[in-house]
């Protein structure tokens, strides 16, 4: 790992000031992806601004608008939260499937979403539920937030502070995981929201995406059988040592069917 300067921020404003004062600074959340990337020298920031000491970035709030989760809330906290299990059980389930118990004790929702790893789980829930991402400057709708591989609408120096999820009528998540990394080879989040059915896919492409064909079909008839007839094209999907694009395309249908089955069997 290359050397860097370390700063512990006391507030979001303090973190922004410290970022602005650095050459090529990055914020540190739980570090479960960033530290690994820095160890491999894939990432070499000049400065790290640690957000762990900022109490305002932690916590879960449930009100009439839905569930708001602070950026520094760990996956373990979301997975175990009685409020989230009650309001959006699919979100708690998704959090319980991320990595392994030790990773879940350190990794945070804000870090995962801001990093936008093509195989991360949370982006599927954020896009699938039509959540809103709050930052140090503004609010960004999920449909506009994820812009490409590891790319988001976040501008340099902008810090993700919380994510608000509207409560769906029902939702489910199914993931085919890489057994070593536990990342999603393909993960599909299906939700029946106030604005219709949303289907978000992670792991399969360079960035989380929605499948309108599945959404339309499930909008007409919400059943696992409807999913069977739909083939997602392999064009532009990821292909690597773990799975070909064609296999990933096939898994999208399988995982979508499992997510729908999970929902209707409840």
């Amino acid at each position, binding site marked *: *790992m*290359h*050397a*860097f*300067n*370390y700063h*512990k921020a006391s507030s979001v404003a303090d973190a922004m000031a410290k970022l602005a004062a650095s050459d090529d600074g990055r914020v*540190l959340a739980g*570090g*479960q992806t960033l*530290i*690994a990337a*820095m*160890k491999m020298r894939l990432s070499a920031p000049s400065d*790290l601004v*640690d957000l*762990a000491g900022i109490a305002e970035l932690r916590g879960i709030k449930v009100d009439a608008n839905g569930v708001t989760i602070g950026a520094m809330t760990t996956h*373990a906290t979301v997975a*175990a939260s009685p409020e989230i299990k009650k309001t959006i059980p699919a979100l708690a389930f998704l959090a319980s499937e991320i*990595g*392994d*118990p*030790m*990773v879940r*004790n*350190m990794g945070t929702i804000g870090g995962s979403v801001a990093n936008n790893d093509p195989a991360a789980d949370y982006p599927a829930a954020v896009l699938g539920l039509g959540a809103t991402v709050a930052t140090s400057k503004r609010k960004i709708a999920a449909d506009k937030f994820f812009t490409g591989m590891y790319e988001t609408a976040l501008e340099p120096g902008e810090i993700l502070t919380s994510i608000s999820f509207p409560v769906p009528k029902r939702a489910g998540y199914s993931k085919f995981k890489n057994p*070593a*990394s*536990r990342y999603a080879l393909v993960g599909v989040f299906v939700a029946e929201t106030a604005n219709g059915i949303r289907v978000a896919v992670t792991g399969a492409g360079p960035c989380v995406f929605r499948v309108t064909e599945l959404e339309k079909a499930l909008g007409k008839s919400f059943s696992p059988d409807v999913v069977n007839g739909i083939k997602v094209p392999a064009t532009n999907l990821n292909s690597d040592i773990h799975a070909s694009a064609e296999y990933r395309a096939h898994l999208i249908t399988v995982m979508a069917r499992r997510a729908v089955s999970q929902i209707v069997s409840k």
Partner: protein
Amino acid sequence: MSVRLSMTVNGKPVNADVEPRTLLVDFIRDTLRLTGTHIGCDTAQCGACTIHMNGKAVKCCNMLAVQAQGSTVVTIEGLAKADGTMHPMQAAFRDYHGLQCGYCTPGMVMSAIDLLKRHPHPNEEQIRAELDGNLCRCTGYHNIVKAVQAAAGA
């Protein structure tokens, strides 16, 4: 640039100046000379480096030492009593032969203790799912699961 680090490790206060890029596992092994915490894959997959920070299991090969600033850390060396009496989980791993080469064992034991805190009476499926972050290349996990079940009943 170095950072003054203070934390409690296995009940004792520890202070040291570290470079920010020092990994917690290197601090524990090289600075504190507590070499029971192992580095297996060094990529946060195998779990050999599992320790407890503020009561929760974490993989210390994938953290900076500065992230443990002010925290309470327990490593495998901190489990047994001063007179050498093993922690019930350590005793169960010995009794049920939950190890062969022993390399993954410190991490397995630390994870298994965390597991029982959250699931005091786990079934076999839960134990296997919860130990997902710890890889063992020898045992096939069979005796590890038996050891955790025994410790849960103890």
